C-alpha cells in the first residue's frame, strides 16, 4: 500500500482503503481541529419529556406522561432520567439546553418539517441543499462531512465529497474495476455518481469494519473525528420520536429514544478524550409535541421543542430559554409549546463558532440573510 499524506502524518490511525495516488488537497492542519456533531431526531422530539419543567400545570395536561424520577439541573428544569451522561456533563459545564425553540415551521407535517429542518428554508421542498452543507461550503470545509447513515442526509448536501459510514460485511471489487466504471463518465460535464466513486476510491481505513449498532457507530465516529485530517462534521439520524401512542414516561418508547441520544454523547465523550473540548454535539428535530396527551397516551405533532447540546465548545451549562409558559393562552394555537427562539439562530451561531467563520457570512451564505440572531456569545466559546 502506498504511503499517503494522511497515513504519513498519522501513522496507522488513518490510512486509505485502497492503495492511492490522490493526495487530498484540503484538510490543512488546523490547531486545534473543531468538530460539530448533529443528531437528527426524526418524528418530532417531545422537549417537555426530555427537559421537563417544574410546573403544576403539566400534571393536568399529561397525567400518563409525568416523570416521577428526574435529574434536576436548575430551579425550573430537569433532565429525563435516561439522559444520564448529559446530566453528568452538566456539572462540568459541558452540557446545555435551548428550550422552547424550533425551526420556524408550524404546519405539523413530518415530511415538510424534516425537509425544512434540514434545508433551513421557510418553505418545504424549495431547496436541494442543507444548512450544514451550505455552512461547510461557506467555511471552505471540503471533504469534511461524515454521515452515520446509509443515505446522505439532506442536511449535509450542498458541498461535494462528503463521506458516510455505515458498515457492511460485503467487500468491494478491486480498485481497477471502480476506475473502469468511472471512465464511463469521461466527457460528461459533472455527474454526482462519478464524484461518489472518487470519494469511495479515497476512503480512509477508519471507515471500515464495525457493525451498524448505534453503540459501534458512535464509537467509530469518535475515532474518525479524532483523526486530525479526518471529517469535522458528523450527522447521526435517529428515528422513532413520533410517539402518537404509549409514549411512556421514565421508561417506554420515548425514553428509549432519549437513551440513544445519551449513548451517542457517552461514546463521543469517552472516545474523543481531550478532543471533546473542541467538539459540539447538538440535536435537531422537526417539531415538538402537544403539551396535552392524546387518546392513546401519546402526543400529537406540535411546535416548540428543545435542543440538547454537549461538548467543550459550550460557554457553560445553562437552560437558555425565553420560556413562554404553559397556560392555555400561552400555547401555540392553544395546544403546543410555543417556540420563542428560532432554532436556526442557534445552528447559525454554532457554525460560526465551530467553523471560525463570521456570523454575518453564515447568515448570508446559509440563511439568505433572513432574520437569524447571533447567539454565539451567549451559548458558545468563540
Amino acid at each position: 500500500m502506498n504511503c499517503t499524506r494522511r497515513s504519513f502524518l498519522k501513522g496507522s490511525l488513518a490510512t486509505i482503503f485502497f492503495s492511492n495516488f490522490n493526495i487530498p488537497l484540503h484538510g490543512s492542519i488546523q490547531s486545534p481541529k473543531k468538530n460539530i456533531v448533529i443528531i437528527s431526531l426524526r418524528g418530532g422530539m417531545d422537549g417537555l419529556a426530555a427537559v421537563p419543567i417544574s410546573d403544576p400545570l403539566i400534571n393536568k395536561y399529561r397525567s400518563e406522561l409525568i416523570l416521577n424520577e428526574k435529574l434536576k439541573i436548575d430551579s425550573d428544569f430537569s433532565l429525563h432520567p435516561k439522559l444520564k451522561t448529559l446530566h453528568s456533563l452538566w456539572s462540568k459545564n459541558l452540557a446545555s439546553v435551548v428550550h422552547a425553540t424550533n425551526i420556524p415551521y408550524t404546519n405539523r407535517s413530518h415530511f415538510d418539517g424534516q425537509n425544512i429542518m434540514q434545508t433551513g428554508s421557510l418553505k418545504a421542498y424549495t431547496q436541494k441543499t442543507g444548512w450544514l452543507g451550505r455552512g461547510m461550503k461557506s467555511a471552505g470545509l471540503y471533504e469534511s462531512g461524515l454521515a452515520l447513515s446509509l443515505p446522505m442526509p439532506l442536511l449535509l448536501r450542498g458541498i461535494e465529497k462528503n463521506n458516510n459510514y455505515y458498515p457492511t460485511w460485503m467487500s468491494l471489487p478491486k480498485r481497477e474495476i471502480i476506475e473502469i466504471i468511472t471512465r464511463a463518465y469521461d466527457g460528461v460535464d459533472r455527474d454526482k455518481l462519478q464524484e461518489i466513486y472518487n470519494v469511495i476510491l479515497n476512503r480512509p481505513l477508519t471507515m471500515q469494519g464495525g457493525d451498524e449498532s448505534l453503540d459501534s457507530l458512535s464509537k467509530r465516529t469518535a475515532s474518525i473525528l479524532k483523526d486530525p485530517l479526518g471529517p469535522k462534521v458528523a450527522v447521526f439520524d435517529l428515528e422513532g420520536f413520533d410517539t402518537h401512542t404509549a409514549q411512556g414516561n421514565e421508561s417506554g418508547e420515548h425514553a428509549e429514544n432519549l437513551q440513544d441520544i445519551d449513548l451517542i454523547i457517552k461514546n463521543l465523550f469517552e472516545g474523543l478524550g481531550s478532543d471533546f473540548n473542541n467538539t459540539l454535539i447538538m440535536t435537531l428535530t422537526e417539531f415538538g409535541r402537544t403539551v396535552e396527551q392524546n387518546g392513546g397516551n401519546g402526543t400529537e405533532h406540535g411546535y416548540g421543542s428543545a435542543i440538547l447540546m454537549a461538548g467543550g465548545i459550550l460557554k457553560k451549562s445553562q437552560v437558555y430559554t425565553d420560556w413562554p409558559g404553559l397556560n392555555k393562552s400561552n400555547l401555540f394555537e392553544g395546544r403546543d409549546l410555543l417556540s420563542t427562539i428560532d432554532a436556526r439562530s442557534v445552528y447559525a451561531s454554532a457554525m460560526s463558532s465551530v467553523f471560525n467563520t463570521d456570523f454575518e457570512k453564515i447568515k448570508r451564505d446559509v440563511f439568505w440573510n433572513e432574520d437569524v440572531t447571533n447567539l454565539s456569545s451567549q451559548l458558545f466559546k468563540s
Partner: protein
Amino acid sequence: MYRDYIRKVSFGIGIEEDMPNDPLDWAKNQFDQNPNLIWGYDLPSLEDQRKRYGEWVYGDRKVLRQKFKKDRLKYENAKDQLRKKTGEKFYESLELSIRHTSALASKSPAFERMWHFWGNFFAISEKDFLASFSTGVYQREVIRPNMVKTFEDLVYDVTTSWCMLHHLDNSENIGPSSKRGISINNDPNEKSKVGLNENHARELLELHTVSPEANYSQEDVIEMAKAMTGWRYLWNEKDLEAGPIKFQDEYHENGPYKILNKIYDIKDFNTVSQGKELKVIIKDLANHPSTKKHISRKLCQHFICDDPNEEMINVIIDSWNKNDGSLIEIHKATMEVAFKYGNDFKKFSMPELWLLQNAKMLDLNYLYSYPKGFEFKGASPNRRQKLLKDILYELGHPIFRAKQPNGYIDLEDEWLSPELIIRRLASARKFTDIANPNLNYDNDFFEKVIISNFDKPEKFLKLMDSAKFYSDRFVVFANYPEMMRA
C-alpha cells in the same frame, strides 16, 4: 427510443425474450387486467396473516411473558417455538419472493412496476410486526385488485384496511363524545383517558390524497380525524388488536364535519349509514384537483425524472379527468408520457429496481425453487429462501420496511451516498454466486445482452471490453451509468 423505453417502464429484455414490435402498445396493453401473480403454491390471505400476527403478539406478550416470567431461558425457547409456528421470520421472505418471481416471469412487467409504485405510494412503514406478517399480503390483496378500478376505490380500500388503520393508529382515534369515549373518560377506574388521534387523518390528507398543496388547516385535520373515529379492529381476547376491521358506532364522533370548506352532514346522505361518511369524504378527496396533481406528479417522478414539468403532469391529469379517475387509463397515460419524454429524461433506479433489471437481463437466480415457489410448513426460512431479503437489506432497500409512512423517497439524491454505492459495487461482485450455471458469461454473452437492451450500445460495449475477468464483468455491467439510470 425503443429498447431504452423497455428498461424505463419494465425490467428490460430477458435473454430468451424478443423485442416487442411496438413498445408503447406493448406497455399500454398490460393494464387492462390484473394479471395473476406467478407462484406455484396457495397464497396466504390477509385474514390468515392477521390471525398469525395476533397469535404471535398475543401468544408472546400475554401468554409466554406471563408463563415464564421467572425463567428467561425457557421464555426465549418458547418464544422461538412460537416464532417458528407463526412464521414470524418466514412471511417477509415469502412475500418478497412472490413479488420478484412475478416481476421476472411476468408477461406484464410494466403492470408489476406499477404495482411496486403503488405499494410504495401507500407505504406501510416499519411498525410492530407488520412487515413480518402482513405488508406483502396487503399489497397483493388491497392494492393490486384496485389497480383496474378507480383511484377513489383504491384510496378507500387502503384507508379502511386493517394494515393501514393499524399502521397509522386509527384504532386509538376515539370520539371523546362517543358512547365509549364518554364512558371511558368518566370511569374513575379507567386510568387512561381517550380522545382523537390525528395520525391517520393527517396522512390521508397529506400523503394519500390532496397533499399540503391543498392548504388544509389543523382544523381540517381534526375534523377528518373525527370522521374517521369508529373505524377500528373488533377487539377480542384472543386476537387483541388483530381482530377484523368493523366500523363501530360506539366509538364514533358524530358530525357534521367541515373539511376543506365543505360540510359533511349525515342528514344529507340518504343512502349512507354512519361510518360510511368516510366514503363520501374520500370521494371528494380522491377527486380533488390537488390530488390529481399530486398523484400525476408522483407517477411522472417515478418513471420519467425527479423534477417533472407541468406538460408531463398534465397528460396524466387530462386522462384522469376524461376517464373519471380510472386507474387503467391513468396507467396508460403514464406509459405514454414516459414514452414521449423518455429520450430526454433519465430516472435513477432505486436499488430493488436495479436488482430486478440485472436479474432479468443477466438471468440471475436468487429465488428459491424459481419459478414454482415454496410454502410455509411451520419453520424459519432456509438460507436460500431468505437470500432476497438479505440482498435488499444490504442494498438499503428492504421493501416492506420503509422508515416513514411516505415510503422510500424516489429521488436520486436520496440514493447517492458512498455507502449506498459501495453496496451496489459489492453486491454486483457477488452476482457470480447467483448467476445461471448453465450460461457462459463471456464477453459475447454480455455483448448480446447490451445490444438487446440499449438503443446506443457502442460506448457500453467498449467499456465492457476492459473488464477482463469473470466477476469484473458483472460489476462493470451493473454499475454502468445507464444501468443506474433508465
